[in-house]
């Protein structure tokens, strides 16, 4: 179990863009979650681990996007709340027996972007969007990923990609986005 200050340090590091720390999140809390999901939510080991992977990614996305700005509970509580909701959903999809969610009121998992999850679960949309992204060359893929997913500032992207100025990076980013939009339109 992490102390509050350890959690806070980890949270700030993730916020600053250290995506590789998701490994630590996973390793620190995975076993406890899987045990819990198997015992209390009737999940299989595979489903529990898979849902926990998605929970860690959702947590990361919420932190870097600014949706989660202040840690109001321990990271474990947050991850468990998200993971639990994902297991409920998985159980429902598998028409497995579903325990009742007894936790009413405010829940950290309420910040989950369910519309995004719904969109991604439509197989046709997934392969269409994947094709568009695969067709986009580098460095466009990297620029757009760093800016729109990891929320890196323009200055960092300029250095990562090796562009001469922030202005040039902004223009490049705009052109890359237009290119991706064209590819998305073409695949629809």
């Amino acid at each position, binding site marked *: 179990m992490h102390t509050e200050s350890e959690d806070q340090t980890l949270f700030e590091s993730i916020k600053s863009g250290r995506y590789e720390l998701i490994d630590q999140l996973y390793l620190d809390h995975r076993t406890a979650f899987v045990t819990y999901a198997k015992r209390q939510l009737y999940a299989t080991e595979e489903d529990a681990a898979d849902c926990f992977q998605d929970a860690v990614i959702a947590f990361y996305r919420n932190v870097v996007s600014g949706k989660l700005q202040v840690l109001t509970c*321990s990271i474990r509580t947050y991850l468990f709340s998200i993971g639990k909701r994902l297991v409920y959903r998985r159980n429902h999809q598998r028409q497995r027996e579903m325990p009742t969610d007894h936790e009413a009121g405010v829940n950290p998992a309420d910040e989950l972007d369910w519309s995004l999850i719904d969109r991604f679960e439509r197989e046709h949309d997934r392969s269409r969007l994947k094709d568009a992204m695969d067709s986009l060359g580098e460095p466009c893929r990297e620029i757009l990923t760093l800016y729109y997913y990891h929320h890196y500032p323009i200055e960092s992207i300029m250095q990562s990609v090796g562009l001469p100025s922030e202005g040039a990076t902004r223009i490049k980013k705009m052109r890359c986005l237009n290119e991706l939009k064209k590819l998305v339109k073409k695949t629809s």
Partner: protein
Amino acid sequence: MNTEDQPDRIGDYLRGDLADREAFERELSANPQLKIEMETTRQALDAITLREEQVLKDRLRNLEAGMATTARQPDAKVIPIGRKRSGGWFAYAAAAALVVFVAGYFLLRPAPATPEQLALSEFEPFTNIAYTVTKGANDGDDGRAAAYAAYETGDYATAEGAFAALGPDDPVDRFYFGQTLLAQEKYASARDLYRELATQTDFNLTQESAYYLALANLGLGQADEAREEIRRIADNADHPMSREARQLLEKL
């Protein structure tokens, strides 16, 4: 508004970075073309998210696969390095001092802990799976929130007091109360509590309680009784604490 800036504005709006979101939303409802453009941009950003999350997912899947297949790596072969002899009398003096130190250590060290004490020293309290601690959101349930918050931070003395104040009604709270007692090596109180919980019907932590009752007995020095119970749990593959019991037996 400069139309060249429009893709950036849409992108920033979707990224959550646009300063005047309300003005943009008004514009959006009045301009169907802008709405279409925003839908395409949203799909483009979905494509970025989908791909990157696949990258992160693959990363975690690899970790998971590594956890499943982690076998003990063979010990590294130690190759002696030829060292130039030097130091003369100093080396002999150092060796003699080391012999005296080691002999002194074995003669004067405190009595070794029993296997039971050693095993219990590694006790890790049960993960809080009963209550979601959310700061500032548990105003109607302050006592429980305080108990579990202290429990999660490892402040077992405070947690013990808070759980005690909750009363005997909820067996789940009592179960965690017992964990605070074990964590502080208050084995007699823990034994009484888990003895009661281990015989409860319609309580989903009954089996876990039986395991912790055995731990409490171990702490009280009733090793034979405890070992027997721990072995029974270890032998039952369906018991939720079977793995923990097997590990504990190895240490004993």
